[in-house]
């Protein structure tokens, strides 16, 4: 039974402007840093065994900040497999900008993100295909532990779909805000969603 605390990183300049941010390695902005402080306060009383984080700095920097605040979190790991989907040539662009430039390609992607990718980017299936095994490995190492996973919206949605038996194509129906906390308890028989997209501590 691994207890997962799934955290999405804090706000970045691009996320605030609704620009697609996948593998681009942006830091969190000033608002994001405030969000991080509030998040850290929320997590301070939790007993976390390990932190697995996307290796992009908006996640990995938060990981070590949290580790040094917690009393007994010990091992820290950067995982490339926990990165957001790669948005390829569409990195840094807004929906409107892409729609103006490549309306058909965009529509294909919107209609079937499992099988279609942004040019040079990843499909949703590819994203889920790397996030799933990563979580399995974590569960195998910490079968009775509490693990904090600091990652991005896409991987968290994939994780939830996988654990809760939600079809991946419905991923968009799960909202994951910046610096939000989602808690899932995994068991051999299945997973229990305990908390989804909590942001009350950010106010």
């Amino acid at each position: 039974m691994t207890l997962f605390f799934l955290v999405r990183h804090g706000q970045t300049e691009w996320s605030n402007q609704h620009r697609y941010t996948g593998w681009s390695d942006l830091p969190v902005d000033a608002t994001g840093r405030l969000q991080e402080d509030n998040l850290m306060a929320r997590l301070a009383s939790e007993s976390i065994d390990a932190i697995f984080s996307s290796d992009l700095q908006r996640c990995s920097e938060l990981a070590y900040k949290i580790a040094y605040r917690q009393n007994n979190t010990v091992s820290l790991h950067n995982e490339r497999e926990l990165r957001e989907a790669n948005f390829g040539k569409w990195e840094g662009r807004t929906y409107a900008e892409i729609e103006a430039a490549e309306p058909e390609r965009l529509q294909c992607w919107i209609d079937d993100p499992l099988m279609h990718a942004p040019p040079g980017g990843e499909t949703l299936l590819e994203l889920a295909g790397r996030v799933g095994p990563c979580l399995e490995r974590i569960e195998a190492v910490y079968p009775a532990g509490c693990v904090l996973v600091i990652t991005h919206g896409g991987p968290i949605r994939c994780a939830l779909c996988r654990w809760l038996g939600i079809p991946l194509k419905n991923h968009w129906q799960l909202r994951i805000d910046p610096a939000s906390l989602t808690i899932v308890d995994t068991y051999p028989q299945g997973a229990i969603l305990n908390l989804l997209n909590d942001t009350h501590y950010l106010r």
Partner: protein
Amino acid sequence: MHVNNEALNMSVRPRPNIAALAITAHGGPNHAELEMLGLDPSTVIDFSVNTNPYGPPEEVLQALTDLASGSVIARYPDSECLMLRRALANLHGLQIENILAGNGSAELIWCIAQAYLDAGDTTMIVVPTFGEYAAAAQVAGARVIEFRASESDGYRPNIEALSAAIRSERPRVVWMSTPNNPVGYYLQQSEVKEILDVCKEAGALLVLDEAYINFVGNAWNTVALLQSGHLILLRSMTKDYALAGIRLGYVLAESEIVEMVRRVRPPWSVNVYAQVAGMAALEAGEQFLRSSRRALIADMAYLTGGLRRFDLYPLPTYTNFYIIDVGDAAAMRSRLLPYGLLVRNCASFGLPRYIRLAVRPQPETRRLLDALQPVCSELR
């Protein structure tokens, strides 16, 4: 001709800073000590050295076996380590001129100090860290300033304070290990960039000892920062590839810097076995490192879980070892030794309350945890 022997009978005098040099402590067994306890060194489980406990890749063992011939041993090795450096250049996306191999990164630490520290120069070491930088700097005659990370920060340096210290002291060389030995922290890209900027301003050379970088997994790429001309990356193949007995390390830097360090490195310091082992290890490469990391993550979880039952909480780590506040590290070390278990007393790092434990396979960890039962009760 009569020679006045008394007048000429002067004693041989070493350099004053050598005579004053303290012995640098390192991990590993003290054979005399083990002998006194009636312990055979080969039976001792060594948690005090941070090498990959799963041993070197199969490729290395095969390559070394193939090498055991009189004709090979009789010939001088390639002093320029061309084949090995080509393989490393390929791995790191650099030119061969950016790479220098040495007899362990230990030799290269001494060469860097010889090349860049003159007598009276100031050098700054971010402590707690590996003790060899200080030894090498002192022998070069440099004035060593320690920037000590504070306990309240978990012994992780405050980058702003460190930057201010570099600006004010203007050292010639700044030494840091990342991942840090013994603490286990790992510097983020933004932090290293900030320190490097300050070093550039101050005309300092930043030495980053990345001996444990391959235990991190998805480490960010420090090689990209070499262009600054103020950075040397120090790498070791003794920990990750378990080649401690072979002795092999290398530096990565701009070619001008590599050339200076090369000039003070003794010739033929990388023997034929080390060169062949290094190339074989690189062939095993990322796949070997990844599977080592996977095993060690599980082993660490097992050790951490076990320590928790004794109310022992290590500091956060990114690598394959961590430090633990046990109150009296010397006492803990000596109580564990009769059980055939060796842990590192961190007193030489300025942390006499802490022991450092390397992650080892679970059956060996089991023995440590079993021994901690009586030892912890005794020490309470």
